[in-house]
C-alpha cells in the first residue's frame, strides 16, 4: 500500500454496479490515479478508517445498497474525514440540494462521461492547496 509514488492521488470509487465501477475505476487508473473500489458505504468507511490508506477523493454513487446511501457516506466523511473531498453521482432528483450541503459542487448526473469525472477530480485536486491527510479518531 505504501509503495505508491508520493504524487499519486488515491480515489475511492463507491459503486455497487460492477459494470459501472469497473470501467470508471480502470479509466481513472489509466489517468494515473490509484483507485480503490468499494461496493457500499460500509466498505467505503472500512477503507477510510484504514490508517495506511490516505484517500484524497471519494467518488460515490448516491444510490448504493445498505443502510447508508451516498448522502450518508458524504456526511460521514465530512464528520470523520473532513480533509477528503466527496463527489457524488446519481439520478435522484433531490440529490442536487442535498449534495450542495455535503459537497462543494453539484453531483455528476448519471450516466456520466469518464472524462467529466476526471475533469471534476482534477478541479478538486487543483483546488487543494496542500495534501490533506485523514485525522485519527
Amino acid at each position, binding site marked *: 500500500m505504501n509503495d505508491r509514488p508520493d504524487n499519486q492521488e488515491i480515489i475511492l470509487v463507491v459503486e455497487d454496479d*460492477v459494470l459501472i465501477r*469497473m470501467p470508471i475505476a480502470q479509466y481513472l487508473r*489509466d489517468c*494515473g490515479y490509484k483507485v*480503490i473500489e468499494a*461496493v457500499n458505504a460500509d466498505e467505503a468507511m*472500512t477503507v477510510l478508517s484504514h490508517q495506511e*490508506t490516505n484517500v484524497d477523493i471519494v467518488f460515490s454513487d448516491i444510490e448504493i445498497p445498505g443502510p447508508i446511501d451516498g448522502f450518508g457516506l458524504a456526511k460521514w466523511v465530512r464528520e470523520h474525514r473532513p480533509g477528503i473531498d466527496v463527489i457524488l453521482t446519481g439520478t435522484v432528483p433531490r440529490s442536487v440540494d442535498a449534495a450542495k450541503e455535503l459537497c462543494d459542487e453539484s453531483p455528476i448526473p448519471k450516466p456520466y462521461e469518464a472524462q467529466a469525472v476526471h475533469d471534476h477530480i482534477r478541479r478538486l485536486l487543483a483546488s487543494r492547496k496542500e495534501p490533506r491527510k485523514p485525522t485519527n479518531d
Partner: protein
Amino acid sequence: MRYYFHLRMGQTISPDELGLELPDLETAYLEAFKAAQEMWSELLAERSDPLVRSFEIADEHGQVLLTLPFREVLERAHKPTGTLPTLTQTLKAELEKRKILAASLQEQIKATRKTVETTRKTLDETSGLLAYTLRGGLAAAAEKIRPTILVAEDEVLLRMMIADQLRSAGYSVVEAASAQEALDVLAHCFDVKLILSDVRMPGSMDGVGLARLVRSEYPGVKVLLTSGHSPAIDAVEHDGFFPKPYDPAQIIIHIKTFVSEETPAQRRVIAGSRER
C-alpha cells in the same frame, strides 16, 4: 500642445512637413479660412479645379486631429460671423470623441491582452491535459496486453491488498465483491485469464459454486480459490487452493505458472489463430 496646419492635395500628404505652426485651434481655423479664400480666388481667376481636397490640423507629432473638407471650409469662410465658436465647439467635441476613442482603444487593447493571456493559459492547460491523456492512453494500451485477473473477494481490505499486489506484479485486475459480480464481469469481459476467488462470499452463490460454473461455462479460465476455513472442494474444480491468511507472493508465483504476459506480437498471432 501645438497645432499645425496642412493642405491635403488629393490623397497625398507630405508626412515630414507639419506645415504652419499655430498657437491654438482658433488660429488654425482662421488660417484655414484665410487659405481657403485665397485659394478660391486663385481658382476663380485660373478657372481650374481645386487640387486641395481638404485641410488638416495636426499636433506636433504629426497626428492628424481633424480633417476639414475644402468646400466646407470655404463655405464657412464666406460667412465667418458667428461660426467660429460653433466650429471651435465642434472641434473640441471632435477631440473629445478622439480621446474617448483612444480610451476605448486602450480598453480594447487591455481586453485583447487579457484574452491572449487567458487563451495562452487555456492552451497550456489543454496541452497539459493532452499530454496527460496521451500518457493515459499509452498506459491503457500497455494495460491491454497485460493478462487480466478477476479477484472475487467480499472483504474490501483484503481485496484491495491482493488487487494492489497483482497490479504491481504487472497484471490487469478486475475486482468483484461477490460471485454474482464475478459472473457479470465474465459475461462482459472476454480477456479474463484467471479468477482468484474467496470461497465464503455473501449472496446466492459462494466461491465453490462460482468455480464450478466457470469450469463449465468458461473452461479456458483458470480458477484459484482461497478460504479461511477448510471447505470440502474437489481438486478438479480449481487450479489451486490457498488457505487464509495467504502470502500474495506465493499466489503470484502460482499465477505465473498459468498466465504469462503477452507481447503485442504474441497477441496478434493468438488473435490470428483464433480467427482461423
